[in-house]
């Protein structure tokens, strides 16, 4: 009896382990923009940073601080979704990590902007579904990104900084 029960426990653990594996495979530990609060934790883990939460009237700001002065602020709506990001630091952040499912759209738009007219200038992407801006120079980069239709009512884009 004892033996059977133990076997059953092991099966449950195996099953749980398998489910966890499936979960991790299906939802890689990234995708902040548009993601939920768990994705903020994933970013914190990736950055190996500390996190503090600041409550505002219409949203919550999760501020992640990592080494060498790198800071990422993630703006989470009352519905629990990351609608905006702001960052600054000596070097650009891992945008695949931060933008998640919006990363490819960003890459294509950044490439299109750079091909528009020759010259070195800040990044300004304003598409219906995605805004990304970045400025600065080596050793001091700063930028922000948001999804316009995800802004909670009454929240202005300028608040993401």
């Amino acid at each position, binding site marked *: 009896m004892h033996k059977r029960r133990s076997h059953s426990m092991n099966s449950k653990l195996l099953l749980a382990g398998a489910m966890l594996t499936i979960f991790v495979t299906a939802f890689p530990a990234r995708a902040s923009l548009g993601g939920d609060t768990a994705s903020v934790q994933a970013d914190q883990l990736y950055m190996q940073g500390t996190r503090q939460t600041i409550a505002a009237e219409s949203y919550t700001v999760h501020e992640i601080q990592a*080494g*060498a*002065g790198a800071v990422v602020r993630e703006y989470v709506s009352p519905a629990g979704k990351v609608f905006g990001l702001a960052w*600054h630091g*000596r*070097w*650009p*952040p*891992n*945008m*695949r*990590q931060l*933008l998640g499912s919006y*990363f490819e759209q*960003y*890459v294509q738009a*950044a*490439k299109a*902007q*750079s*091909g*528009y*007219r*020759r*010259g*070195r*200038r*800040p*990044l*300004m992407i*304003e598409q219906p579904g995605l805004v*990304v*801006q*970045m*400025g*600065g*120079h*080596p*050793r*001091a*980069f*700063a*930028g*922000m990104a948001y999804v316009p239709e995800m802004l909670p009512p009454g929240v*202005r884009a*300028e*608040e993401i*900084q």
Partner: protein
Amino acid sequence: MKELRAFLIFSVSMACAFSVGCGGGGSSSTSSQTITSSGTNVASISVNGGPLGDYDDAAFASLTVCVPGTSTCQTVDNILVDTGSSGLRILSSALTVSLPPQNASNGNPVFECFPFVSGYTWGPVQIADVEIAGEKASSAPIEVIGTNTPVPTGCLDLGLPSSDTLDTLGANGILGVGLSAQDCGPDCPTSIYYECPSSSCQGISQSLAQQVPNPVSLFSTDNNGVIVELPSVSGGEEASVSGSLVFGIATEANNALGGATVYTADSSGSFTTTYNNVAYNESFIDSGSNGFYFLDSGLAGMPLCGDESGFYCPSGTVNISATNRGTNGTSGTVNFSIASADALFSSNDSALSDLGGPSSGGNLFDWGLPFFFGRNVFVAIQGQNAPGGTPPYWAY
């Protein structure tokens, strides 16, 4: 509170946008500018559209790279002069000499992914004697841009465009003569330098001594900084203008600080620009930015151009004042103008003194190449001695 602040900023900037001399303060006289044209520490530079002829507002120089310790050399022209970064980067397609690689201690060749806001450069670090005017940086690591070695994930994940070809770079290379002696600095993250055995590249934390240096810091003399000297642009736009890149500050008879005011920068190369009583404390002077980039359309009170949202298109010329303040407490007012980028681009002129656009992704004013027209700008390298203050600093 934030809404009130934003409203006030918007209101004041709207008033400013249509009034000459808003913000008050002194003007930067250009009548006394002297451009040094001769000396072993003087290289010619030209704002002329670059190798493809269509690059707005960038200064280009010519330099020579040699296999270290030999007379096997090559002159490379159309190198963009960038005070916003440090280090020499040259397109592999523009190089005919074969330079030795920099190897890590385990013998693997070192590569670099160097990010700029406008795009990253990727390629091997190689060693060269770099000669410009009468100056020489011996056995300097440089980045050779463009390679068959695949770009590593850590570089691709930045999501930046690649600037690895003549078409995407618009120059044969970049001469970074900025505020720092090395390109990456202490605590360089593993997303910048890589060692690349034949299998795949691994990020490494490159020591300061192994990093790509500001070549000026390796000169035997005249190694504490540079002066960028460009004349004013007549009528706001000219086909091209020429000036000088002078090496050293107060090291020769031709590079005295003179009456220039010193604005010291913080360790990341920033100072504070105040506009309409709002301080932007990550501001910088950068010959490698090809315009005045600041604020957003609403705060600046200027519309974006139609298709090209990266530029401002006011209906007339807008005069603006802002105040720069160094970390040494020195402050001074800068007056500048923004004209319609669409109108400026309708000519084939390459020197455009009133070109600007938004840079709202940060807390900054980006004083790009137009800032340099009509004033000599000193750039003193961190860790070196220079008169008038403790580098890193700008003076003008």
